């Protein structure tokens, strides 16, 4: 079944709230999932795969060590810690023109993609590198509402469960040798026209979690909550 972006976002929002994410953190996490689903990254499936590490385990606090650009996520989800980290790095970009961040013990680096795309109008250039679950090196380049994914002949050392993020307030000479995928407002409009198509089994799992946020009806609440009385004349 096909769904609108709004439906995916709202259902994810309710699911995050149902899993214990506070106001604001639930909005950021829902944005991540809906954006990934819209752009054919299987956001809903990824969320289902993350349930075990986030459900009733919300922990959004980030501790920064002496080297503020090396972060140990300790296998905690980017859905919980990612938004605040990206904000933090973006705030550092004012002091430096370019920053390089290494994030270790990161299980779900793909959740950084929507966050970096979202702030791309604010910063000139950013780059995300990680190994996916098949140990394939993933490289994403972000420039003002444009994402390019592809291959590079540049030697970039990266370890398993490690993420490299480079942010720059100047254009970077880095380029991809082969662009395998581009995302822009135009491709997103095309995807909106086709609607979103999450796997139905995954969707039902998320819908069920979203239902935790609903209040069951009593006759009293039906009458008081929505009005009643002379309703048919």
């Amino acid at each position: 079944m096909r769904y609108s972006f709004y439906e995916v976002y709202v259902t994810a929002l309710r699911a995050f709230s149902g899993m214990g994410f506070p106001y604001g953190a639930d909005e950021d996490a829902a944005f991540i999932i809906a954006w990934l689903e819209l752009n054919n990254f299987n956001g809903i499936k990824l969320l289902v795969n993350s349930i075990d590490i986030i459900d009733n385990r919300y922990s959004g606090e980030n501790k920064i060590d002496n080297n503020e650009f090396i972060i140990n996520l300790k296998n905690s989800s980017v859905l919980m810690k990612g938004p605040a980290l990206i904000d933090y790095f973006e705030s550092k970009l004012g002091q430096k023109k370019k920053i390089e961040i290494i994030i270790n013990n990161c299980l779900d680096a793909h959740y950084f993609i929507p966050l970096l795309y979202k702030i791309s109008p604010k910063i000139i250039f950013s780059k995300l590198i990680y190994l996916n679950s098949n140990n394939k090196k993933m490289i994403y380049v972000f420039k003002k509402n444009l994402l390019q994914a592809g291959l590079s002949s540049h030697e970039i050392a990266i370890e398993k469960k490690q993420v490299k993020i480079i942010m720059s307030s100047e254009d970077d000479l880095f380029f991809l040798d082969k662009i395998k995928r581009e995302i822009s407002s135009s491709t997103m409009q095309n995807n909106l026209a086709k609607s979103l198509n999450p796997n139905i089994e995954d969707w039902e799992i998320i819908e069920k979690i979203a239902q935790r946020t609903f209040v069951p009806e009593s006759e009293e609440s039906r009458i008081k909550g929505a009005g009643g009385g002379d309703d048919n004349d």
Partner: protein
Amino acid sequence: MLQKTPNHMTLERMGSRYPSRLSFSRSMLREMVKENWKIIKAKFDLDKDGYGTAVYELNTPNQIYSLVCFSQYIPEEDRSDRVIAEKWDTSYTLHSGKISEKNLDRLRQNIPLQEAGRSSANELVMSRANKSVRLFEKVIECLSEGLQPNIKEINAVGYLLRTTAVYGNGKFGMSDFVRTKTATHFSQPFRAEMLAVYIIREFSVDLVEHVAYHKNPSKAVKLSNNIKQHLGIGNSTGLGMAPFIIKHPTLIHQWMSQYEKTLNEIKLIKNIDKKQFNKFIKLLHKAKLYLDEVLTFDEYQKNKNYNSSVDLNKVIKHCEKISLNAGSANSWKELIEHCENNYNYDTQEIVKVQIIELFPSIADPLANDMSDEENMGIDTKQTILSLINLIKNKYDWAINIDFKKKNNTYLFWYISEEKLEPRLGERYNEKGAELEQPLGIGKMVNELYNFAINLPSTHKLNIAEFLLKFPEFRGIIRRIQTLSHYDYGEIKDNILSKQTLPLNMLRFKLSFFGASRYDPKSDRWLRVSFFAGAPFYDNLSSNNVDSWGFATMNSYN
């Protein structure tokens, strides 16, 4: 230097608003006339009792849209205005493009089910409407006997069909607004919804005339224009509308800001033109007559209407004195300030919207810019101390509330399990408060303020550093920072208070839609009419497209 925000966004003021030239129903009709949109009845396949399918095709310069109408029999006992209803007399969708048989079949399977059905990205609006038990059959009876219904009976109800929901923006699989505004004519909020409602009104009259004809082909007549034009399309509206205002603060700001910009430009005009002023006095008389004629059984609304009628009379007398002394240095600004100092909120608003009627060149371009990107962002570099000062300046109404008092946290907003609709519960009398929706902005601001003020060690941190440690404040900080540049984004009242009247929020939003004839049925839901007094498509022209506000029974003579 931070500026104090104007106090236009208290609940009482919000609940005193009236439709204006900037309302979406008005701007949609103007666009229809300006671009010469054509409406044709492409299909009218109804049986003698009025059950079946109709399609109204709308031809715009670049695109075709189809309003698909399904009419079905439902037993009396199944007819309900409540959102929990599952059957409706009629159901509708606005489809982008000419309708194909395949799409019509798909929609026939889904649209009558409403929330239980599915739409596609080609559908922009979905709605349903029930027949007015008081009026629908009565009008058919009259027409089939060759008679016209009495306009007083029309005025007592106001519509033949009453919508109970008008959905858009991605609901139930429909097109997301971010797509709609790029790919269709409807770049402004709620224009597509208003178009659908306008054509449903056309259908309501076609429907009664069709049934009346088949009841008595030799005698049946059509509705005369003056009776017809007084008919609007009804709408029952409940709490579902209220959270929208809180969840879309930058959009709400844009609506209010355009309205205030209109008034501010008018206030700059130094002298009042005498001819224009006479027209204004006529508009005040029309509004007074409307208030005297409009019917409601709700005591609160009755009093509001009565008091406004009394005050309007005083304004009229005041203005008549001014007009006798033409040539003096009176201005619209002075008149507005006189009303703000002497009359109730409803009267002030009526005066303002009627003044705006006189200045289409100012108001109409602003009415075409009511949209907003709705980007809410975090300013990572602001310090906590600066945020505290911002809160003191912009949210003084919130930080001065004592939330330890039960009356100030009496209500909570939640989503009901049965229909996924927003509801209002009583925190200390009902279950479910632990699942409260984050709509109590005043309380959240208050909590953040007290937390930060009592933790001086955070005052030098910037927001990014603070949120690393305290992510639970992420949502409210993003809101406060974003709205620091939006004077009208926030309701400046505690909506969790026992004294909150949710109707005020509904009326605020409905006024921007262009709804009239407010008829509250409780403190949480009401009935209104859309397009009451507006010309039907056959008579619509540039001469009458903007002359139907505050329609009265003698407006069509």
